[in-house]
């Protein structure tokens, strides 16, 4: 099949078009940690797992079971687990049998009461987070032979579109239709027995920065910066500022001075878009002006900024 080559010279070339597996919109894709497999979640209710071959990709498994549109798929960092979520309100956890390349459903979790939009794995533990139309974020972990919902993070007043973990896995950030970002911190159970569940508390709410729904959020594991994709046509970058003001008293309880996330982007994001594809690559620019700028081409193209991710 004819694969178009970019006339712009060295850059990106389309290596494969995988068009026969899904019968409806492909909503999300996720690479396996080893890079050999690609999972694709589709509105047709299935999730396909593709294996890299010499001359392209081949379907090695089709995960069925969701009753309607699959909204998200995510590989666990261990490479042995896959999670999917759907409009059918459930989150499914699948285990991969390494050698046989077989996938087995190990749990069907119906903790949410509405459409589940996004699932993301913890960076190092086998802990899963999901975001839903029911305004909550839920966390799941393995227990015995099964999985259970171990925490429900309430606070948002509308659909939670996405969630991202920080590099330590001690915090996660959620973005919502309610135009706010919330940062949640793991609370170690003090004075409780070793068998108790850690709880999560919302330690920061960023409101007033976004003009419309926030559709995606990404937390850079290298720099700690948080980027958001918003329906008001802008990309925003937030960085944590720890108060070092000489006015503040030396001994302060953490609860009185939570870490602040002012919107002073240290980086200017220059968005460049290639002519052939509609993907956008943003690179930190060398200039240091305190505003987000877009190239004229980009602002004509973008109506809303959709997924956002950092190059690792």
């Amino acid at each position, binding site marked *: 099949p004819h694969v178009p080559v970019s006339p712009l010279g060295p850059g990106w070339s389309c290596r494969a078009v995988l068009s026969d597996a899904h*019968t*409806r919109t492909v909503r999300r894709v996720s690479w396996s940690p080893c890079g050999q497999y690609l999972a694709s979640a589709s*509105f*047709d*209710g299935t999730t396909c797992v593709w294996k890299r071959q010499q001359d392209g990709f081949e379907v090695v498994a089709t995960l*069925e*079971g969701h*009753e*309607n*549109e699959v909204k998200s798929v995510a590989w666990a960092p261990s490479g042995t687990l896959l999670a999917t979520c759907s*409009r059918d309100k*459930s989150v*499914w956890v699948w285990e991969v049998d390494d050698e046989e390349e077989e996938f*087995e*459903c*190990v*749990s*069907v*979790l*119906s903790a949410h009461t509405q*459409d589940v*939009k996004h699932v993301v794995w913890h960076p190092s533990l086998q802990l899963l987070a999901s975001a839903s139309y029911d305004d909550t974020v839920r966390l799941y972990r393995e227990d015995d*032979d*099964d999985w259970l919902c171990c925490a429900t993070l309430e606070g948002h007043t509308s659909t939670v*579109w996405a969630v991202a973990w920080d590099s330590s896995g001690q915090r996660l950030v959620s973005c919502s239709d309610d135009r706010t970002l919330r940062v949640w911190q793991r609370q170690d159970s003090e004075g409780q027995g070793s068998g108790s569940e850690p709880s999560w508390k919302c330690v920061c709410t960023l409101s007033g920065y976004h003009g419309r729904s926030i*559709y995606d959020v990404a937390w850079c594991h290298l720099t700690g910066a948080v980027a958001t994709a918003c329906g008001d046509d802008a990309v925003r970058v937030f960085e944590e500022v720890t108060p070092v003001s000489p006015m503040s008293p030396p001994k302060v309880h953490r609860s009185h001075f939570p870490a602040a996330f002012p919107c002073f982007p240290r980086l200017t994001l220059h968005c460049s878009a290639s002519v052939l594809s509609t993907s956008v690559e943003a690179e930190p620019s060398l200039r240091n002006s305190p505003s987000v700028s877009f190239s004229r081409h980009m602002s004509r193209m973008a109506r809303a900024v959709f997924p956002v991710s950092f190059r690792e």
Partner: protein
Amino acid sequence: RFHGEGFQEGLAEGSHAGLAEGRRHGALHGARVGSEIGSYHGFALTWHCLLQKCTDEKNRKKIRALDSLIGMIQKFPYEDPTYDKLQEDLEKIRGKFKQVCSMLNIQSDFRIGPERSSLTF
């Protein structure tokens, strides 16, 4: 005076009718839940019998899952409709049933075809 009497009679009649309707509704709902769980129970017991003979690792996993489903069904409090975790446990049973179907490569009955729904993200 007649107003008051009329009211009392109406209230009594209404309560009586309400009670009857409530009982009907409860019986119907209870029967639905009972028949749903009953069908999962029969399904699980049958497959458990069918897989008894096979002892390889893959089937052991399936049998473990079936045992888990049967256990959840047996623990379900049929006698107590006021059990506060009734809905939760029912969802867990449904989820376990779907997982078992997936392992056995069977389509669970409530499958809706790929209908054209409105655009969602």
